[in-house]
């Protein structure tokens, strides 16, 4: 059983207090690194404490008071992390903001949070903030880190980071007692005080400011450290947006509580190189990052010589066969064990080195579903990659996959101290020490999300499997029912389909209907390369999509998905009974996808109404004409006769179950 760290077991319950503790205990250990001018510059814990103290006192002299909000805008830099703790030391509340958000959205967040100070990275952010001075009347001072281009600006309300620190140092030099007074200032701080405010992007409506207390973050971080045995020797790469709860916990809360080192990359384009140089021991990335790395490897292998390729293929086979089992500590034959050792030397080791994951002790992926092949690829190399499920409102951790209990389709067991339950409507709910205090100036939303006894609605529908693992199936509001009462989770089905490389997009229908029907978009790259290899000629997406061989291929994929679904008692009722391949690619220019490439379900339902009817009226073909917008803004129409195929339903009977096992 994994232990948990209780709130006050160690005395230090706020980050400023933990900082002073670390400066004493880990004084000469490296706390932060940043690559600058091609060299990794580093700061030890005691140096960081000094930097933060100087900045904090400088802030105080500029007039920052307890309770004031201070915005943090920019890419991951040590100075910006320090600014957060420096503000906390005087009781102010940092509000990290997404640096790349559009001015209008940033203005809303800063205005809503009533920020008084802002610490920003460079001229770009300064310009952005100056342009929104009307919307953010509370903003008094802007402090920038990178001086370039700002020399001729009016500096009455604009300060250089270093000059604020100089001010602090000068004051410290004048008065011997000031350092002690500064420490006294936060000694009385409590764990229940608000530590930080993070705005959630929110798919609908305005962003909401999630208030997290020191207790939320410190206890969650300590639990996370205990769960994965993280200590002061870890190295992490801080490269995800600072305004995101994940980065805040991994690069600040956990780094401070465990005392490990945070590395800031040179800039956003050098992350791959920087990761290889640092070789983080604890690594977090959304699935997209792992996908890109895998694609890069596969592309490079295509160009490699014949011997190398043969070696790669051979040992990847071995890894697929034995790698995950070895990682999970399961029984593996001697021959495979030896081959795997050899493969580690010839292929896996160099690959991991290339990706900068050689020293990775534990890695997490979260945010969205990761493709099972991708997940298995990394695990078979011996990388302890796991999935977690979390939310800003929970200080990240809700469920985690424990070592050795990795199932591709679940997100793991409740994290330490987290209680989990499934509500009547299938929604996942949790209660934990990490549960947020409330939304800033939005009691209504707080009451909607958090029950009086501390349970939080996640907005996601899920089920708890027999082994205690949580499985997320869809957004709760998208989950519907078929007319026969079977549970219908469109995204769950769509994701299963999308894991086939040949299927780019899928849209499932079935709420309040008698069966499930699906629109499919083929992936032009994958299917196109298949067509090339098999001498299938085609002139356009439309022609390829209507090709009988392509239909047969997709049919086999859909059949496979149905077989998978039939094995899951909750989902067996919602197998795909009819599908069609759309005659055009879903496109954000036509409004069918959001700019972040998510399907706009209701829009598609309107636009392709006749096709949806055809899914349910039993016809085998349907003529459609669709208006499209070309890249230059002109409009045109695509017309086609789309074929619709029926699918067999797989029984969830014992026979199938046996076959599956």
């Amino acid at each position, binding site marked *: 059983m994994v232990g948990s760290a209780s709130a006050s077991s160690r005395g230090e319950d706020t980050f400023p207090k933990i900082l002073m503790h670390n400066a004493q205990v880990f004084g000469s250990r490296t706390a932060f690194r940043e690559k600058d001018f*091609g060299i990794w510059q580093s700061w030890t814990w005691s140096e960081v404490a000094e930097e933060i103290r100087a900045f904090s006192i400088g802030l105080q002299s500029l007039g920052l008071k307890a309770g004031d909000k201070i915005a943090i805008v920019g890419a991951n830099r040590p100075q910006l992390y320090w600014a957060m703790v420096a503000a906390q030391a005087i009781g102010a509340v940092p509000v990290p903001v997404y640096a790349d958000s559009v001015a209008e959205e940033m203005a809303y967040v800063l205005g809503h949070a009533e920020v008084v100070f802002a610490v920003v990275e460079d001229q770009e952010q300064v310009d952005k903030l*100056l342009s929104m001075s009307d919307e953010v009347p509370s903003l008094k001072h802007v402090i920038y880190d990178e001086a*370039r*281009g700002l020399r*001729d600006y009016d500096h009455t309300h604009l300060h250089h980071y270093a000059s604020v620190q100089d001010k602090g140092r000068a004051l410290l030099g004048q008065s011997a007692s000031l350092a002690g007074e500064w420490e006294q200032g936060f000694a009385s701080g409590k764990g229940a005080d608000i530590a930080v405010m993070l705005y959630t992007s929110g798919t609908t409506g305005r962003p909401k400011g999630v208030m997290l207390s020191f207790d939320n973050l410190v206890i969650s971080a300590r639990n996370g450290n205990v769960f994965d045995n993280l200590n002061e020797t870890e190295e992490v790469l801080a490269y995800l947006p600072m305004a995101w709860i994940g980065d805040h916990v991994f690069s600040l809360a956990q780094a401070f509580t465990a005392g490990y080192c945070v590395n800031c990359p040179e800039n956003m384009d050098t992350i791959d190189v920087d990761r290889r140089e640092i070789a983080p021991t604890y690594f977090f990335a959304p699935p997209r990052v792992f996908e890109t790395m895998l694609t890069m490897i596969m592309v490079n292998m295509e160009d490699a010589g014949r011997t190398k390729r043969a070696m790669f293929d051979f040992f990847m086979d071995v890894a697929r066969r034995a790698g995950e089992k070895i990682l999970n500590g399961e029984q593996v034959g001697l021959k495979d064990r030896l081959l795997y050792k050899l493969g580690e030397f010839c292929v896996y080791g160099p690959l991991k080195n290339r990706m900068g994951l050689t020293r990775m002790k534990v890695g997490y992926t979260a945010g969205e579903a990761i493709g099972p092949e991708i997940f298995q690829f990394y695990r078979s190399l011996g990388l302890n990659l796991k999935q977690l499920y979390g939310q800003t409102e929970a200080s990240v951790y809700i469920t985690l996959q424990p070592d050795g209990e990795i199932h591709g389709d679940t997100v793991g067991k409740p994290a330490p101290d987290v209680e989990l339950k499934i509500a009547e409507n299938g929604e996942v709910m949790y209660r934990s020490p990490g549960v947020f205090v409330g939304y800033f100036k939005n009691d209504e939303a707080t009451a909607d999300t958090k029950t009086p006894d501390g349970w939080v609605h996640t907005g996601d529908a899920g089920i708890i499997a027999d082994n205690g693992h949580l499985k997320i199936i869809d957004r709760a509001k998208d989950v519907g029912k078929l007319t026969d009462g079977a549970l219908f989770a469109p995204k769950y089905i769509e994701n299963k389909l999308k894991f086939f490389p040949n299927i780019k997009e899928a849209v499932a229908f079935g709420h309040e209907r008698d069966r499930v029907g699906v629109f499919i978009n083929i992936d032009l790259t994958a299917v196109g390369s298949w067509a090339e290899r098999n001498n299938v000629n085609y002139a356009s997406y439309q022609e390829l999509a209507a090709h009988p061989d392509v239909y047969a291929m997709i049919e086999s994929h859909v059949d496979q998905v149905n077989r998978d679904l039939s094995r899951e008692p909750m989902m067996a009722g919602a197998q795909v009974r009819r599908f069609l391949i759309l005659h055009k690619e879903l496109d954000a220019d036509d409004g069918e996808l959001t700019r972040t490439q998510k399907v706009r379900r209701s829009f598609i339902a309107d636009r392709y109404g006749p096709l949806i009817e055809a899914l349910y009226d039993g016809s085998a073909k349907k003529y459609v004409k669709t208006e499209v917008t070309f890249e230059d803004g002109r409009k045109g129409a695509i017309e086609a006769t789309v074929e619709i195929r029926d699918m067999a339903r797989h029984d969830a009977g014992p026979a199938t179950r046996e076959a599956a096992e």
Partner: protein
Amino acid sequence: MNAFVADKAQTPAGPDAAAEPEVLLRVDNVSLAFGGVKAITDISFDIRKGEIRAIIGPNGAGKTSMLNVINGFYHPQEGTITWRGRERRKMKPYEAASQGIARTFQNVALFKGMTTLDNIMSGRSLKMRRNFFWQVLWHGPAEREEIEHRRKVEDIIDFLEIQAIRKTPVGRLPYGLQKRVELGRALAMEPELLLLDEPMAGMNLEEKEDMSRFIIDVNQEFGTTIALIEHDMGVVMDLSDRVVVLDYGKKIADGPPEEVQASQAVIDAYLGVSH
């Protein structure tokens, strides 16, 4: 982009606005001919310290020839060039370089097989003091000198935001980035006068915006005087303090952008009238 343009408007000609502007380079009655072809005829203008000076004109107007005259590649048959108050004699381009004039080229002229870092380092070669003997010995003075220069080069890499391509051979880079590397190499010479021959040719809008920003930053941060040739009128009008317009080797206008824009001769030259 508008923000910094607006800032520029508030401080019109940099730090020297109030004082009598110091002339860095003056060209008087210069004519240049190749055999019977007169490339430049009787042109006079000056470049003030700290300004961004644009040279524009239709194709074949003699802009690049003018730049080549300034950096000593061509020798005008008539006229004089005064550099920092002293009349210049006939000289080789590398002498111009050592006097503080650096340039970039219309067609990228980098060492394609070398990395970005090495290309920019090559811009420092005129500043290297240790001779061949010390370089062979390497340890000690030569190494220290190299580190010093590397530090300068890293400043430039940071300034131009090309950290990600530090170790990439420039032949593999897209065109826009190559242009940026070339600017970096010119900056490595820490020039007093920087000549840019069509710095934005062949770039897309975003690359142009980046490049404009770099040019302004070079001018403001390093105080480098810049003379540039450019076809994109929007860029020229936004960036430059003064513009000189050439047509068929003759100067047809000279002055602040707004003034030049309104000049009938310039309009005729660009839109074309029968000569």
